[in-house]
């Protein structure tokens, strides 16, 4: 997201939050909401948008939001959450636990650090994996997996790379 676009996006999000939370669509409510959103945007948009040293212009392309792909992305996202939940449920209901946990290093190709963070959160919500740490210098994630399946090659990396491709289409 370009630095100039960030306050506008933040203002719209805050205003939407106000309208949804209070549920008042009369004039006074919307006016107070607009005033408050403007104030808070003015006070905090520097925290919200990525700082300048994180975003060297010539290397990292600005973050944008692909609206058409998001219509496909979010159903897939919820489907992944559902799969993760059923997987844990099936694991716990078995009489013997078949676990093969381990921590794996996964290399990613995302250029923007904010999209890396989104990827990390998404990994935590999808089947069998929790992000333990992030290495910003090498763009690597350390992922704790519930079931490695094989010890030699990285089966978790394939899952993560699939998610990463989806996220790149959404954000970069």
């Amino acid at each position, binding site marked *: 997201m370009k630095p100039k676009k960030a306050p506008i996006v933040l203002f719209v999000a805050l205003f939407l939050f*106000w309208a949804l939370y209070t549920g008042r669509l009369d004039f006074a*409510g919307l006016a107070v909401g607009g005033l*408050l959103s403007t104030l*808070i945007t003015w006070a905090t948009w520097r925290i919200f948008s990525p700082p300048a040293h994180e975003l060297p212009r010539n290397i990292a392309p600005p973050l944008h939001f692909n609206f058409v792909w998001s219509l496909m992305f979010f159903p897939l996202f919820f489907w992944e959450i559902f799969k993760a939940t059923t997987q844990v449920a099936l694991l716990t209901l078995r009489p013997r636990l078949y676990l093969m946990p381990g921590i794996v290093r996964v290399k990613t190709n995302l250029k923007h650090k904010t999209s890396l963070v989104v990827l990390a*959160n998404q990994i935590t919500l999808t089947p069998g994996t929790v992000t333990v740490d992030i290495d910003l210098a090498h763009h690597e994630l350390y992922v704790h997996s519930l079931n490695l399946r094989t010890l030699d090659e990285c089966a978790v990396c394939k899952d993560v790379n699939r998610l990463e491709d989806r996220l790149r289409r959404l954000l970069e």
Partner: protein
Amino acid sequence: MGLLLLCLGIGWWLWKGVAAMEDPEFIIGPAAYYIINTAEETGAANIVAAILFDYRGIDTLGEASVIYTTVCGVAMLFSKSKYKRSSAGLSFIARRGVSFLVPFLLLYGSTIILMGHMTPGGGFQGGAVFATVTILLCIVFGSSFEMSRIKPKTKETIESLGGLFFVFLGGVGLLAGAGFLANTAAGFPRGQVGNFLSAGAIPLLNIAVGMKVGAGLSTIFYSMVRVLELEFGEQMSEVEGNDKN
């Protein structure tokens, strides 16, 4: 097993207590008076806020000044050194996530304060949310970041301004010849129940208390944290240095 039975028993007892609130015979004595007459007399839909700021406004002034006294006492007790700053925080994921959440939390706190006369909430609760935001910033980014954004002096100023505003609003009642902290009797418009501009001075008093509580609680947090650091700082200094992410 005994623990389980105890939990179930307490749960059943609480459930009976909550369910009894549905019973109309539960409401007797002064409660019935307030429930029937509050909306008409003060214009506030939230009965608790009306009682706090209208029927017993002077008590609330006393309660708010308790916080001021606490801040003064804590600051006097632990004023041996200046605020020590540090930039140790949590990982980058937590930083980015919390920085995304902070504007929404601020808007949530101000919503609680401003809607205090209609929905549950008010100055004390919204101020607590504001203090939570500053504590989160201190925890996640390290205290030097938080203090560079919001100076400790600014917090003290905001707290004093909140107190002054409260007393000033009470004084308006005196000027109108209706007694200290009078609400509708002092000429504040009552408005329509459930609207934004209703209940006279109650929203303004909510704002004053919110300023006071938010700034006061975060100042107390910082003073306490400094004490922890003075006590345990020497033992833990060797753990430093493995947090460069």
